[in-house]
């Protein structure tokens, strides 16, 4: 296995000592098969135990290790060393406050995610004895792609609109609302629309499309948001021009 010496420039911030973040460079002997997360783990285990970052699964499932790698939002466990030159710059996810080193404060995202009620709200109460809610393959593919979201927040780091207007509910949360709205078993759209169709909701999106470009799971949040805009516009016309038609 070939080995390469990589200069890993990592943004460091210690809230107890630093007034502003600073870069620290580590020289890491990397195997070509490694990902950036392996290089960070090498630093933590061999060079500097004080380095803080989040990670868990190492297989692009948990969504914990999102960070800016050479200015691009990436999962550190999916960013292969062989795709980079000998100098790699690693920073915390853009648009989020820095808690410490590569760890960001994510409460804003968690709050927005809960505000769109990202869970099934059944249309009708049904006793357990009535059996399962059945769904055809045609009903399933309407939302299947959106179920792949791992809440890694790369889309928030890529979205310039979220950087400029922090109140924006954002790509992942609205895409997940759309996922449940599209589900044939769900009846919670009206409850979600209050947040999703507000000014800070889908109308803050100007379709830059960056969220879909960086999404590691190909969820296409930008597409979901445009579909939500179309549906919300139809709602508006129905409400104002055809008030007798039920939504």
């Amino acid at each position, binding site marked *: 296995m070939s080995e390469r010496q990589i200069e890993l420039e990592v943004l460091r*911030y210690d*809230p*107890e000592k*630093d007034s*502003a*973040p600073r870069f620290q460079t580590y020289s890491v002997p990397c195997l070509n098969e490694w990902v950036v997360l392996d290089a960070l783990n090498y630093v933590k285990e061999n060079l500097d135990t004080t380095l803080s970052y989040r990670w868990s699964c190492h297989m692009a499932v948990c969504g914990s290790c999102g960070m800016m790698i050479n*200015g691009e939002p990436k999962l550190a466990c999916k960013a292969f060393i062989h795709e980079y030159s000998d100098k790699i710059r690693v920073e915390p996810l*853009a*648009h989020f*406050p*820095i*808690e*410490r080193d590569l760890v960001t*404060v994510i*409460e804003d995202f968690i709050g927005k995610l809960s505000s769109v009620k990202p869970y099934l709200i059944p249309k009708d109460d049904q006793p357990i004895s009535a059996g399962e809610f059945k769904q*055809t*393959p*045609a009903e399933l*593919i*309407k939302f299947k792609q959106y179920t792949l979201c791992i809440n890694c927040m790369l889309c928030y780091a890529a979205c*310039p609109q979220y*950087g*400029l207007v922090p109140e924006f509910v954002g790509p992942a949360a609205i895409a997940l609302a759309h996922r449940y709205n599209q589900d044939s078993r769900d009846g919670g759209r009206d409850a979600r629309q209050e947040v999703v169709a507000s000014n800070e909701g889908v109308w803050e999106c*100007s*379709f*830059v*499309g*960056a969220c*879909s*470009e960086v999404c590691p799971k190909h969820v*296409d949040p*930008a*597409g979901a948001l*445009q*579909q939500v*805009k*179309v549906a919300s516009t139809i709602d508006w016309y129905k409400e104002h021009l055809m008030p007798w038609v039920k939504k």
Partner: protein
Amino acid sequence: MSCKPYIRETSKTTWYLEHPRYKRYMAREVTCIFILIFTFELVCALGAVANGPEAYAAFLAKLHSPLSILFNLVALVVTVYHSVTWFNVTPQAMPVQIGEEFVPGQYIVGAHYGIWAVVSLVVLILGVW
């Protein structure tokens, strides 16, 4: 949460210089200005038509100036750019599902080009006729 999280401000004036994809986005947005001015030109043309043949002839004479020809050429190029980039994202905004499959994106984009060609042809025929 730490007692002192560090907040990185996004520049309100230079954010789009930070990444090529933001520059592409801004390039697309800026083309709207030319479309706006061209729409204004079209409204003026309608006004000239309403004011009679002499007013319309005077309007056409103004369009023959080099500056006007240059503007209309630039407006044509940026409008085509704006339209093409919009057509390319339509499958994301308007997916079409038939049975258990989504219609491939290129058919949706192709349908837009087809409608564009038909409408342009109709306008051309009406103009010549």
